[in-house]
Every structure is written in C-alpha cells, then in structure tokens.
C-alpha cells in the first residue's frame, strides 16, 4: 500500500496545467516548425504567426489562446494507492488554482441549458478514472478549446462499412469543419466500443504524442493515410488554403458489438495543449 497525499496531487496538477496553457509540448512545436518550413500555400503566413505566438506566450508567460478550455483528466490509478483525502477534490483544487494564478479565462458554465451561469473557477473538469495494477499514479490532461470541440462528431457506422467508410466519415467531419477549428488541427479518433466509449477514446487518442506510432501496424498505416488525405483537402492553416490542414491523426480502438461500428472524431486546434503528471 502506498500513501499519496492529495496536497501533492493538487500541486503537481496545478503546475502541469499552468505549463500546458502557456507552452506547447515539444512534439507539437516540432511538427509546426516542419510544417512552416514546407508550406508554400496561403497559410504559410498563418503557420509563421502560430510560431510567433508560441514564442511570445513562452516569453511573456501569457496563455497561448484566450480560450484556455475545459480541462479533461484521464487518471490511471494504481490499485495499491491510498489517498489521504478526497482525490477528485484535490484535482478540482489544482484546476481552480491554475486558472486563477495563470490568468486563464474561466470558460465553464455550471448548467448547460437552464441559465448557463459561469462557474467562476473553470470547474468542474471532466474526469475519467481507470484502475490499474501497481501503485503508480498517472494523470494525462488536455485543455480543450471549444472552437474545435464544436466541430467534433460521432458516426454510428454499419458493421460492414469497412475501412473506406471510416476514412470517408473522418474526411467529411474535417471538410465540414473547414477553417472553424483553427487548423492545422490534431485529430483524435475513437473506433469501437459503444457510443460513449468511442467518444472517450477519441479524447484519449489526443493524449498521445504526435511523434508516436500506433502499436498495430495496420492502424499505424491508417493514421498515416488519414493524415495524408486530410492534408490533401487543401483547407490549410486558418482555412486560408494550403498543404497543412492537420499536424497529426491518432486512433484508439476497443472491441465492439457485432451489429455496429461506432466512430468518434475529436478535433483539436493547433494549440494542442496537453500534459502528463506522474506521481
């Protein structure tokens, strides 16, 4: 049995969120720089401004984007851990403190329909828990902006639809979105499970590093095919036209029912803000 103090959880989550809102992970910066070098279309200027923005944000300690998003937390909790108090409460404190101290915009409303009153502290986050063997704690976090979230889609495909139908549905989602989600985008895809499971997988896929490969060569190939086809749409940075519409495509799968093929596509903007806390 390992004892983890919730104070530590709060402090390390706060630190990771403060960094994620201001500084992009190395893999994202690297792909953006490469894209900027290669881009010859109208969106060459867009990519340059993105890089400029990254530099200013880091130098001045300002949030990359004023939409600092809703926080998603994927917690892998070792079953041998004991927390000294309310774990979810510790996570919420971390979010609240980070958004206050980082001058991040509080963008969460407490009720989605009735009165849409701002909660005032960006709470609550969306939290997923997974129990794993051992005594480690890993929290993968996303700061999810809603310009891109509003362009995400769920498709309940027929079980016999096949690979081509999946490619077609993903491309339709991307072309419908056009310039709205702040391309170049990052695409998270969830395949299989149930409707809700596919949606969660599409978010989990966004936690993967852009330079990572899918462990199954067949899906690795599909990720590359999709990236190529998305870039061939010509939407380009900011939707102004160009060769860089996406920086990466990541797929996560789960077994599903004989009668269905759920497909969820989450679109993230180029400010692909993510991080990991490990205790």
């Amino acid at each position, binding site marked *: 049995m390992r004892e983890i103090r919730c104070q530590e959880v709060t402090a390390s989550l706060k630190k990771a969120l403060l960094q994620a809102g201001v500084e992009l992970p190395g893999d994202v910066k690297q792909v953006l720089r490469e894209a900027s070098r290669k881009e010859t279309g109208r969106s060459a200027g867009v990519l340059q401004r993105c890089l400029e923005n990254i530099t200013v944000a880091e130098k001045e300690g300002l949030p*990359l984007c*004023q939409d600092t998003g809703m926080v998603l937390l994927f917690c892998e909790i070792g079953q041998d851990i004991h927390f000294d108090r309310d774990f979810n409460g510790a996570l919420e404190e971390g979010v609240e403190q980070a958004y206050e101290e980082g001058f991040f915009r509080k963008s969460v409303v407490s009720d989605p329909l009735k009165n849409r009153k701002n909660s005032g502290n960006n709470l609550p986050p969306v939290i997923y828990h997974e129990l794993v063997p051992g005594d480690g704690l890993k929290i993968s976090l996303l700061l999810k902006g809603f310009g891109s979230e509003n362009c995400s889609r769920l498709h309940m495909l027929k079980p016999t639809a096949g690979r081509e139908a999946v490619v077609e549905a993903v491309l339709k989602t991307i072309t419908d979105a056009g310039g709205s989600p702040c391309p170049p985008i990052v695409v998270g895809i969830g395949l299989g499970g149930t409707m809700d499971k596919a949606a969660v997988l599409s978010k989990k896929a966004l936690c993967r590093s852009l330079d990572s490969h899918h462990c199954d060569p067949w899906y690795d190939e599909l990720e590359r095919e999709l990236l190529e086809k998305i870039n061939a749409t010509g939407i380009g940075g900011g939707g102004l036209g160009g060769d860089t519409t996406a920086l990466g495509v990541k797929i996560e799968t789960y077994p599903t029912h004989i009668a269905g093929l759920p497909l969820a596509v989450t679109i993230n903007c180029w400010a692909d803000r993510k991080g990991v806390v490990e205790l």
Partner: protein
Amino acid sequence: MTREVRQLKVPLCREDIASLKAGDEVELNGTILVGRDQAHLRLIQTLERGEELPLDIRGETIYYMGPAPTPPGRVIGSAGPTTSSRMDPFAPRLLDLGLKGMIGKGPRSREVLDGVVRNGAVYFYAFGGCGALYAQRIVSSECVAYGDLGPEAIYRLRVEKFPVVVAADSEGNSLY
C-alpha cells in the same frame, strides 16, 4: 525573420478599403472596437426598441474577441479572435449603419458578405489561437459600453502592428 507587411490605419478610410484584396496580409495601427455575442445582441435590441446606440459605430472596425483576465502590469490578457459566424445575424444591420470593418475567424454568411459589398466594408481574418501575440500588439484598452458584461463588454483598443488577412473585400471576393 522579418517580413514586409503593409501597414494600415484604423479607423479605415474609404481609399484603403477599396484597395484591399482578399488574401492581402496587413497590419492595423490605430483604434478598433471589441464586441462579441452579448454586446451584439444588446446593440441590435437597442435598435429594435428604436433607441440610440451607446456609441457611434460609423467608420469603426470591430474585433470579435473575449480576452483572458489581465495579468498585473499588462494592458490586456490573451486576446485572440473568436468565431465570427456567431455574429452573422447582427452584422448586416451594423454594416448598414456605417460599420466599416470586422475582425474574427472563420467563414461568414451570404448576408454578411452582401453587406460588406453594399457598404464598401471589409472582413479581416485574425490568426486563430494567437492570443498571446495579439495581447502584445494591444497598447491600451478602455471600456466604452456595457461594462456589466465584463469580458463581453464593448472596449476600444489601441493597436500597433495588429496582424490580419483580408478575408472578404469590398468587391465581393472571399477566401472562404
């Protein structure tokens, strides 16, 4: 790497607007207004009641934006554009009243593009997600109407080298 980008004064003059072509990258210098969803709704409701607007929008350029909180010692927090299409139901009326420029991101409705041409105006694309960069190009900020709306109030900003791309010009050409 420094690029030569055409510098433009705001508020815009008629000659400058006429010279702008969709696709041109320019940098704005001078003053612009800021207003988004709630401010637009109030402006239109005021007009529908037959009352006078709380400010003169003739000749002005409006930026669709809701900033992050202002850190101490700064003029404004992170301040990038929001999605323009949400302002589409309100924009044509404001254009007909003399609004000359709009700044935001994403495509506009047919009605807005028609309003741009009809009134000799322009729609600029601002670089989405570049909130830190825009905060750096804003040198002053002052609330001019609807202060109770907080970050959704109408502000007047003084900007320097504020980078945008002409997304829809006064001749009806559009990037989208």
